[in-house]
Structure formats: structure tokens, C-alpha cells
């Protein structure tokens, strides 16, 4: 047996030992199970004797018989199984398209299968009953596991001046013992001085003629695990708050337009905002290779017909207005109603007119009037086009004018002859050509409100701190006992550490050497 500590561990399946004597369970980390089982029986005796001394009332704990449900939920095996099932479900979710994307799959698989999968909530797996149920189970498991083990950690944290493990000094090796020439008082003073210098604080107790001194460092390490577990509960809480009272929507605003209603992502419903938003301007800058460099919207928030605030919204720089977060998510363009048209009259005269659908205009030579019937962004996959009707006293003609007529003619050289309505020169002596159709940008905004975010952020901080504590720090407890052995003063040092046993060994040696030095060479 190690002279430093006794690795009595928690049997994860809710062994009665841990419930009855949480006091002595000082290691729920780093415990070897075989070791535990083997210790179990020879420890049992000593423990029943020892419990009299502890601050926790023995009877009280004994009477609290843990139910089967409690031990089911407090088992680590359940936690592991739950984590694996959650991982599996999450995995399945990445194989099937989720939410909006699922519609695409509908056309490719049999309708029966699709509706079955839909019923099983495979297409919204992360918000499905399955997933929520698993997360709920995990939360309960985590809570009960932690509650079950916390008293032990708390007792370790509080530290008792006399080791709770009665065997701590029993098999102390020679290297941890030292017989000074001085009396008990002097030895105690020297030990007190040393502990004060090295650990800042210590506790002292006298028992049956022995003096016990106890010092501890890194005691907060006992709580690392609970911080991590609490943070997971925090994430789950934050997610629940978010899904219950959060808003996840989006909206597209054309340059110059104002909106006051957003579309919700889930279910496709619309939601009115308590204010309106106007997109004053949309700016897009590109790199040389054509990739977007910056896109931004100049927005104005309007409340009760008054412009309250004007902002520039950029990707990665959201804006908050009345609790709603606005994100620059996307952009796009739509065909406007305006087009620029050139009229070429045989013999030279060229006029340029700005038109829109419904626009009526006299031909420059007063041969008749023409009317713009339609403005199309992409007519029959052949690019932008407008439909024009020309009337004169003698004739009437209706035809399309394509912007890319030259390119179309390269593919179908005789298009004007074969399809007269595609001939821009159908009304003599004019030839129409479409120079450009106006494009209007719209800005795509993501609009969110998630009251769960601060909870999740706090949980994230807690998670990282907890993990850092678990991995990088360790709790170490040192006891110095000064007693009489066959009439000689004896100093013994025992220590306990969950991790870094080698470091503990060095520390005990160092303390003993210091103590020896102080007592043998007093200043």
C-alpha cells in the first residue's frame, strides 16, 4: 500500500459504500476499480469505527436509503452510454438533409419512406423529441452524478486537520519519519512555522497526545469536475431558453425599401417587428478575382414614423436594436423595372431612352408610337429582354428586344428570320437595341433574439475554467503529526494527492528536510 494515501474509490454503479461513507471517498478521479474492490473489505472495518469522529452524522446518512432510480441515474455507465447515443444521433443528423434542405430529398426517395422519415423527425433531428429526451436524460444523469459525489468533494475541500483516513500514518516509511532531539512544543513550533511559510495557512488539532497539523494547496481542484458538469447543464438551459423564447428570422430588403415584418426560419411564419427597418443603400466591393471583398448595408431603424438610428451593417459586425440582433447575411439582385433602350433609325439618327413597363413614347420621326409591354430579366434563357409594341397608322408590330442579340445570332444566325418576334428591326426603319436593364440590390439580413446567449456564454467560461482546473491543477494535502513513540518525539509527514504522486513524494521529502534543518540548526 502506498504510504501517502489510500485510493478508496467510488464504484460507479452506486456501490453502497459511497453513499454511506462519502467522507472517505476522496478520489473519484484516477481510481482503479480492481484496487477498490480489493481494498473494500479490509477497509470496511476501520471505517465503521472511524465514522464516529466525522462531522457528518452517521445515522442520518445510513437512514437515507438510496432508491434504485437514484442509483440508476447516478451511474457513470449511464452517462457514457448517453454520450455515445447522442454522438450517434448527431451523426445520423449529418447524413440526412436537415430542415429546409430536406425538401430536395423528397423528390428522390419514395414518398412513403419520406413521410416515414419525416414522422420520425429525421429531418429536424436536433430539435426532435429523441434528441430533447436524450439531452434531458443526460441533464438528470449529470445532476444526480454530481449531487451524489459532491459531499465527498466538499469534505476534501474543507480538509480536516486529522486525516480522515485512519491509516494515513500507519504504514509511514522511514523516509517520512524523523525523531528530533527537541520536545513536542518546539517541534510543533518549527512545523507550524514551516507550513505557514510554504502554504500560508494550516489547521491544527490535538488528539490523544498527538499534534496534527494540516495544510492544503490547490484545494479548488476538487471542484473542477463540478464546474464542467454545471457548465453542461448551463448549455442545456441556455439552449432551452433560446428555443422557448428566442426568435430566429431573416428578411430581404431592397435598396430604398422599408420592412417591418420578418420571416421566421422555423415553420416559415411571418413575424411583425415593433419597428421598421429601411435599407438606404447597399454597397458591394469585389476583389480582382471577382470574390466579394466587403458588402454592407446602410440601415435606418424607424420607430413611430421617426428615424431613430442609422447604422452601417457589415458581415461579422452585428447591430443590436431593441433586443433584436441584425446580421449581414447575404445579398442578391433583382431586375428592376427600368431599362435603357437605343433606337437606331436607318440613315444614322440614334436616340437613347430610359423606359419601364407601360411606358409609351413617340418614335423620333413621328412614324408612330411604341409601348414597352414587359421587362424580363432572363427571357427563355437568352438573357435580359423587353417586349415592345409599335403602332403606326399603317401597321402594328410586337417583338422582343434582347440585350445579347449579337451572341444569340452567333448561335442561331438566322434567328430574326425564323422567329420574327425576336427581330429587333421588325418595325422599319428602326432597329431597337437593349443597352441595359437596371439591377437592384437587396440585402439579406439575419434577425435574431436569443435570451439564452448570456447563459451559454457564462457556461462556456465555466466549462473552460473547469477543464483547466481539472487538467492543469491538482489538490495536495499534507499532514504533519507530532507524537511520542517510546518516549521519543516523533514527527511524521503524510500526504495525499490525486495526481502527480511523484511530486507529492518530493514535497514530503523536502518538508522533512526543512524541518530537520530548522530543528537541528536553530537560528
Amino acid at each position, binding site marked *: 500500500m502506498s504510504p501517502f494515501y489510500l485510493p478508496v474509490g*467510488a464504484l*460507479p454503479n452506486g456501490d453502497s459504500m459511497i453513499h454511506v461513507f462519502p467522507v472517505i471517498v476522496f478520489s*473519484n*478521479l*484516477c*481510481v*482503479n*476499480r*480492481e484496487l477498490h474492490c480489493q481494498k473494500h473489505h479490509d477497509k470496511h472495518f476501520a471505517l465503521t469505527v472511524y465514522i464516529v469522529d466525522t462531522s457528518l452524522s452517521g445515522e442520518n446518512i445510513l437512514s437515507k436509503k438510496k432508491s434504485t432510480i437514484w442509483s440508476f441515474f447516478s451511474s*457513470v*455507465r449511464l*452517462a*457514457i452510454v448517453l*454520450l*455515445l447515443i*447522442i*454522438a450517434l444521433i*448527431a*451523426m445520423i*443528423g*449529418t*447524413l440526412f*438533409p*436537415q430542415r429546409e*434542405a430536406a425538401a430536395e430529398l423528397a423528390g428522390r426517395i419514395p414518398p412513403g419512406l419520406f413521410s416515414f422519415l419525416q414522422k420520425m423527425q429525421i429531418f429536424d433531428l*436536433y430539435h426532435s423529441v429523441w434528441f430533447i429526451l436524450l439531452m434531458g436524460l443526460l441533464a438528470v444523469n449529470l445532476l444526480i452524478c454530481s449531487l451524489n459525489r459532491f459531499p465527498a468533494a466538499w469534505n476534501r475541500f474543507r480538509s480536516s486537520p486529522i486525516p480522515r483516513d485512519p491509516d494515513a500514518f500507519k504504514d509511514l516509511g522511514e523516509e517520512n519519519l524523523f525523531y528530533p532531539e527537541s520536545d513536542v512544543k518546539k517541534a510543533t513550533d518549527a512545523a507550524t512555522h514551516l507550513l505557514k511559510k510554504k502554504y500560508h495557512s494550516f489547521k491544527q488539532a490535538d488528539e490523544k497526545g498527538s499534534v496534527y497539523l494540516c495544510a492544503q494547496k490547490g484545494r479548488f481542484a476538487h471542484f473542477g469536475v463540478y464546474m464542467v458538469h454545471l457548465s453542461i447543464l448551463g448549455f442545456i438551459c441556455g*439552449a432551452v431558453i433560446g428555443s422557448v423564447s428566442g426568435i*430566429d428570422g431573416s428578411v430581404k430588403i431592397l435598396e430604398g425599401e422599408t420592412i417591418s415584418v420578418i420571416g421566421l426560419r422555423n415553420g416559415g411564419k411571418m413575424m411583425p417587428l415593433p419597428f421598421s427597418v429601411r435599407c438606404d443603400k447597399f454597397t458591394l466591393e469585389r*476583389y480582382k*478575382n471577382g*470574390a*466579394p*471583398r*466587403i*458588402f454592407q448595408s446602410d440601415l435606418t431603424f424607424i420607430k413611430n414614423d421617426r428615424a431613430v438610428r442609422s447604422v452601417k451593417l*457589415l*458581415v*461579422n*459586425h*452585428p447591430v443590436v436594436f431593441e433586443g433584436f*440582433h441584425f*446580421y*449581414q*447575411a447575404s445579398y442578391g439582385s433583382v431586375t428592376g423595372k427600368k431599362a435603357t433602350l437605343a433606337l437606331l433609325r436607318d440613315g444614322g439618327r440614334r436616340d437613347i431612352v430610359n423606359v419601364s413597363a407601360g411606358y409609351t413614347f413617340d418614335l423620333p420621326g413621328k412614324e408612330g408610337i411604341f409601348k414597352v409591354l414587359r421587362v424580363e430579366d432572363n427571357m427563355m434563357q437568352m438573357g435580359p429582354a423587353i417586349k415592345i409594341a409599335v403602332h403606326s397608322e399603317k401597321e402594328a408590330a410586337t417583338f422582343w428586344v434582347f440585350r445579347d442579340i449579337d451572341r444569340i445570332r452567333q448561335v442561331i444566325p438566322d434567328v430574326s428570320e425564323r422567329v420574327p418576334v425576336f427581330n429587333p428591326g421588325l418595325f422599319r426603319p428602326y432597329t431597337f437595341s437593349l443597352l441595359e436593364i437596371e439591377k437592384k440590390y437587396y440585402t439579406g439580413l*439575419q*434577425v*435574431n433574439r*436569443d435570451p439564452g*446567449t448570456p447563459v*451559454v*456564454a457564462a457556461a*462556456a467560461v465555466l*466549462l*473552460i475554467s473547469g*477543464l*483547466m482546473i481539472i*487538467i492543469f491543477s491538482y489538490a495536495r494535502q499534507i499532514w504533519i503529526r507530532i507524537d511520542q513513540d517510546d518516549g521519543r518525539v516523533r514527527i511524521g509527514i503524510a500526504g495525499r494527492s490525486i495526481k502527480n504522486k511523484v511530486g507529492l513524494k518530493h514535497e514530503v521529502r523536502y518538508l522533512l528536510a526543512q524541518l530537520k534543518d530548522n530543528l537541528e540548526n536553530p537560528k
Partner: protein
Amino acid sequence: MINTAILSWVTFIYFGAFVFYLFRMILEHPFWGKLASWIAWTGLIAHSVALIIRWKASYDLAIGHVPLSNFYESLIFFAWTIVFLYLLMERQLKNHSIGVFVMPMAFLMMAYASIAPGINNRIEPLIPALQSNWLTSHVLTCFMGYAAFTVTFALGIMFFVRKVVARNSSGVRAFIHLLPSDDQIDDLIYSCAALGFIFLTLGIVTGSVWAHYAWGSYWSWDPKETWSFITWLIYAVMLHVRLMRGWRGVRMAAMAIVGFGCVLFTYLGVNLLPSLHSYLT
């Protein structure tokens, strides 16, 4: 570009280091271990210089950003973190045998970056979503995590190799006695997995913060997010079974390999699925 030229040389340097680590194991002379270590350090320094040159070059092109923004750069940085982490570990442990298992990983990563078709090694400007200070911290922490898991994986492989060679009594005895003992490997597997777990957690958290600013939601179950979560769960299970259920040896080595499978899928496999993280393709 000078940086890619240096980086292709670094690939061969890492391969050389691997060969000399292997010499150390087979010829049993400590000289080869020292030489291998020196070569690996030289490679790491050249690698770092290349990264800095690439960084500077991006500023000269007036599109300055850290060299962590596309698939090529991520592979290169992945290899860098693996070698960096390994060499730190080697200094601590004073054991050259692990290099035989880790260096091939770094070499393969570098080789893939320069050979694989369709990998663009040019410095590309950042699209608006990537123009964020969170880019550096997110990518840095994620890849430190990935690297720690890669070393864990190499240790897992080493554990099994040791087991197999030990079983054949006629096997190379020298090879065995230079490797750390089962218990030491087991401790190393745990330490590396724990380190990776911390970094992966940091990576996920920084990613979440960034997503909160860029996409308007700290978590959107995008495949990359989901797979990083799956990886996180697997390593959480790995740490729990060790600490709470006393798993050791073979089981931990197997977990190290399974975990690395998840890491690889998070890093590469996810590109086969539609994703918001599609910057890599």
C-alpha cells in the same frame, strides 16, 4: 512563390527525420535519434519561416491575413502543430522512439498539401465572413487540438505495434526495449487526449463566439459543428472511462484510434456534406 518552395522542401526534411528516427530504432545507436531530432527541429524552423513569409506575402498583395484561410494553409498548419507538439513532448520525455510514429503523420500531411490535385496553394483574399479576429484564435485552437489527437493516435498505433512485436518472440527485440513501457504509453495517451480535449473545447467555444457574430447564432448544427461535437463527445467518453471506470492499455489505445477517426472526419469528411464551413473546398 518562395514560401511554397520552402514548404515542399520541409516535406522532405520531415521524411528524412522519420527515416533517421527509424534508424535509431533499428540500429540502436543514440546518434541517429539525436540526428533525427535535429533534422526535425530544422524542418520546424524552416516551416515556421515559410509560414511567416507567406503571412508577409499576403500583406504585400494588400490582402493581408494569417495563413490559415484555405485548405492548403490548414494542412500546412496542421503539420506544423503536429511537429511542434511532438518536439516539445520529445524534449520532456527524452525518448526518440515516438518520432517514428508521429513524423509520418506530419510528412503525409505536407505531402498531401503539395501533391493532391485540386489543392490551391495560392494566397487568396478573405471573403467577408472570414474577415474576423476570431479566425486566428479559432483555427489556432482547433488545430492544436487536432495535433494533440494526432499524437494520441500515433501513440495508440505505437501501443499496438509494441503488443504485436512483443508477441512474436522472434521479432525485433531492440525495437521493443526502446519504446516506452505499456504504462508510460498509456499515461501519454491520456495526457495527450486531455490536452487535445482542452484545445478542442477552446476551438469549439471560439468558433461559437465567432458564429454568434458572423452567422447570428452560436450553434446552428452545421455538419462541421456537429462533427466537432461528436469528436468532443468521443473524447469526453474516453476521459470518463479512464478516470471513472479505470480503462487502461488496449482499450485506451483503441479509443485513441477511434477518436482520431472522428477528428479526420471533422476535418476532411465533412467537406463531402453541404456545409457553412465550405471555405476549404
